[in-house]
């Protein structure tokens, strides 16, 4: 059934939003597609996406740890490795997992955190002080409501 969209309808109206959703995703405008069912579907979809991201992230972390050199004096050396760059390329989705790794151990995650978030909770006078940097970034993650 085609839905006649009335431009006067408000997107604040949940019934109207559901109507449009069903139309866009090719579903019959069936009352069985209740808001609850849609919620379950989207939750399952989000969970699957999150699991995919986590698997990919874990693979890249393992690859990076195998590639990096611990004898290098500069963080840019390890941050320029392909696996690390792929993690940065994952964007904001990677942040909870990076914060999870940082909460376990101090490693060179600061470059990725800043590159992705474009924020920096570490004041200039504390640059390079690793345990303080770690604490400030974890506090930043909590303040931003990232869960890890």
């Amino acid at each position, binding site marked *: 059934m085609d839905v006649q969209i009335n431009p006067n309808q408000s997107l604040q109206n949940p019934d109207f939003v559901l109507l449009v959703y069903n139309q866009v995703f090719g579903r019959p405008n069936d009352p069985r597609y209740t808001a609850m069912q849609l919620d379950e579907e989207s939750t399952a979809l989000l969970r699957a996406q999150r699991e995919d991201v986590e698997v990919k992230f874990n693979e890249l972390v393992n690859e990076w740890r195998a590639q990096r050199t611990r004898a290098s004096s*500069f963080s840019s050396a390890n941050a320029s490795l392909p696996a690390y760059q792929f993690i940065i390329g994952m964007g904001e989705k990677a942040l909870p997992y990076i914060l999870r790794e940082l909460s376990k151990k101090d490693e060179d995650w600061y470059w990725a955190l800043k590159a992705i978030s474009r924020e*920096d909770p570490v004041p200039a006078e504390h*640059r390079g002080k690793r345990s303080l940097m770690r604490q400030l970034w974890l506090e930043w993650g909590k303040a931003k409501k990232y869960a890890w």
Partner: protein
Amino acid sequence: MLGSWQPWEFPNLKESDYQKTSEESEDYNCLAWAVHDNTKKWDPDELEQNYWPPGVPREVEIEAFRAAFRTKGFEDCDDGSLEDGIEKLAIYATSNGKPTHAARQLENGKWTSKLGDCEDIEHETLDCLNGERNWFGRIQCYGKAVGYMKRVRPAKQSAA
């Protein structure tokens, strides 16, 4: 006593060449250790995550390293020979001229180095840390000592 580094990172380093003098640590690095600072990392990283002396270009270039050490009273010198009352640094670089490491001379003429995130070591010579890319072609070794700096040795070794 083996360190936490991989053998291919220092192809010329033999067990008889060095002694470990600390546990591994990510709290500081070789440039910090060269100036007696074990509280932070000195690193001219472009994203400014680590400490770099204010006003010194954030560049992995020998001149930028020299400028960073000048902020702690060092000046250029010709070699790493031992001189009474003088503390010297050696700056390592690879064959492409990029600096990689700094070692500090001890009063006994030996050298001390912090090896990245691994341990501090006391080493007999500068040459034992030499190396270009390893045989995988991937790991960038330190190259060799290409420049030296000196200052009056501080009264206390722990003071920067």
